[in-house]
């Protein structure tokens, strides 16, 4: 263990290497391991030597030269272009699909509907999402028909010639409506509430009874699209041996590979999934979208097929951030100690589950904020609506609840005529605090961070942050001033 294998360093002189060629070799057998293994655990808050160092990115030069190859920059011989015909209606039954006119167009090589997909359901946690909608449409961005043609334009034109006859239903658009039992199920007979979570700590009623003031508020956040600069893109090549190679902007390829295998009904070993350099993910490229469709189009035509989402596709058919409706009720004493907090979160899950489970859990766990509260009750529901599906996006629900609990803290401070910073310092987590879910917290520096920030920010007590101490745009420019 102590005797390290001698391997020539970069700067070994030629002389030293000539003298002892052995230093060029790694030892054949790994050094003996003695138990227990000593693991060096850095002390809490100890900075690693990397902090404060300047570093460049390994791929930085190619990015700047324009030499990085994203999927849309790749072409393969004989490559076709695919376009997806999307529903355009939020909730409907598909009565008929007529693709004959599109198929007859010169240049159209293959047309694909839900009937051609071996297992027409997928999803990272619940398999509730069709690859191509067959009987029902659950949101306007649902893919219904896919076309592969020799050019992008012909494929788009062919999509316009496809006739789909719908029987329209009244869509469920409001998550609070969807929560009610009498509302018809988006995915009937399944219930609209498809996941819930409860957190209980202490005795909420006792906590409210001990409080001098009760503050109640509702907060809402909106749907947000990731808008990666590079749209979702895929190239699929099905070869004569029955193996398929897929180039994809997918971030989680291992998970994606399993999903593609299950939708295509082929062993996972027949799928080679190549993760290319991705032009921005932000959580929006965490699950498969059109990969199985492209694979099947390639199988049908025997040629490589490429598809790149248009910007409108990105907005209507990729995942988005969950809009939340958050009800907060907090009991607080005269001097600003929080005694109890009751929370209800309703997540608008859109048409499919996607990463809603993760988002729901994280939002619920973090919903009480970084404060020492003895009595907490939090409940969270995610419901189906006939809207663009919501999924992973930076923070998985954490930013939404942060907006709510911090707004709530400001309201409490206003009510108590207290400095909002002081209120936070009084209640904030400290070393050894217990989180709402019972975790004993370590390396807690919230108080120090708040004080440092207040100092840097020029916080001068009550209300100064909203009037006197407000930064002007000019100051912000100066703050980002770049020292050259």
């Amino acid at each position, binding site marked *: 263990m102590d005797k390290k294998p001698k391997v020539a360093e970069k700067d070994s002189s030629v002389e030293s290497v000539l003298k002892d060629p052995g230093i060029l070799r790694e030892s054949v057998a790994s050094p003996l391991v003695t138990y227990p293994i000593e693991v060096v655990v850095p002390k809490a808050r100890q900075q690693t030597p990397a902090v404060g160092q300047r570093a460049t990115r390994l791929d930085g030069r190619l990015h*700047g030269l324009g030499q990085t190859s994203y999927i849309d920059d790749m072409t393969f011989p004989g490559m076709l272009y695919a376009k997806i015909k999307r529903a355009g209606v939020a909730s409907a039954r598909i009565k008929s699909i007529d693709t004959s006119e599109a198929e007859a167009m010169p240049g159209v090589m293959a047309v694909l509907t839900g009937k051609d997909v071996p297992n027409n359901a997928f999803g990272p946690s619940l398999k509730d999402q069709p690859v191509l909608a067959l009987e029902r449409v659950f949101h306007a961005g649902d893919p219904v028909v896919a076309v592969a043609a020799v050019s992008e334009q012909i494929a788009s034109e062919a999509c316009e010639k496809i006739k789909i006859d719908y029987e329209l239903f009244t869509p469920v658009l409001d998550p609070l409506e969807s929560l009610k039992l009498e509302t018809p199920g988006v995915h009937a007979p399944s219930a609209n509430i498809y996941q819930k979570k409860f957190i209980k700590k202490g005795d909420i009623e006792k906590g409210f009874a001990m409080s001098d003031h009760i503050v109640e508020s509702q907060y809402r956040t909106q749907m947000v699209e990731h808008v990666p600069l590079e749209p979702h893109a895929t190239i699929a090549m099905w070869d004569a041996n029955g193996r398929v190679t897929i180039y994809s902007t997918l971030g989680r390829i291992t998970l994606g590979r399993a999903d593609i295998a299950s939708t295509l009904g082929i062993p996972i070993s027949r799928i080679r999934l190549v993760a290319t350099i991705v032009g921005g993910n932000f959580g929006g490229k965490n699950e498969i979208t059109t990969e199985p469709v492209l694979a099947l189009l390639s199988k049908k035509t025997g040629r490589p097929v490429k598809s790149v989402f248009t910007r409108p596709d990105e907005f209507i058919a990729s995942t988005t951030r969950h809009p939340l409706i958050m009800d907060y009720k907090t009991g607080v004493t005269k001097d600003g100690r929080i005694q109890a907090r009751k929370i209800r979160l309703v997540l608008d899950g859109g048409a499919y589950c996607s990463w809603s489970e993760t988002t729901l859990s994280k939002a619920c766990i973090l919903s009480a904020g970084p404060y020492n509260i003895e009595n907490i009750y939090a409940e969270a529901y995610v419901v189906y609506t006939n809207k663009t599906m919501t999924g992973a996006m930076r923070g998985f629900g954490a930013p939404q609840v942060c907006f709510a609990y911090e707004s709530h803290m400001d309201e409490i401070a206003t009510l108590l005529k207290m400095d909002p910073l002081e209120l936070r310092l009084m209640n904030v987590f400290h070393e050894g605090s217990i989180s709402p879910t019972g975790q004993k917290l370590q390396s807690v520096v919230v108080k120090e961070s708040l004080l440092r920030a207040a100092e840097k920010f020029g916080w001068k007590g009550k209300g100064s942050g909203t009037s006197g101490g407000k930064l002007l745009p000019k100051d912000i420019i100066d703050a980002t001033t770049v020292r050259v």
Partner: protein
Amino acid sequence: MVTVTLTVNGETRTAIVGGETTLLRMLRDNLNLTGSKLGCDVGDCGACTVIVDGKPVNSCLMLAAQAEGRDVETIEGLASMDRVHPIQKAFEECASLQCGFCGPGVIMSAKALLDEIPNPTIPQIRDALGGNLCRCTGYVKMIEAILLASRNMRGEAVQSIR
């Protein structure tokens, strides 16, 4: 179909394209210059920015035929085999690009700015990047890189950045 002849990065290039083909599509599909990116196809994101007769242009909004006889500079024209352009070097050193998709467009906007104003102020730089969207960086390091590049290009000694 139309025949378009134009100068790209100092070379005369010709391509036969459909009348509706944009300059971006022609550069990418016909001339194989894939450095300019297609991000939105409606002139919002600026990933397709190239310099036409000295002015930065959204090449997704310009028809190839409109570029007939003009002088077009793309990201591929900045570096030579033995020398990276000072702007590209500064972007690399300041780690100004993350996913890199907006990079070629941003660098072309910066090039157009520095060609016109060799010593820009920060507001002028911000103004020049007004047509380029970046979702990763928050622009600060890009501004830093453009300032560094402007100093380097004017031959001013740079002690250190930061």
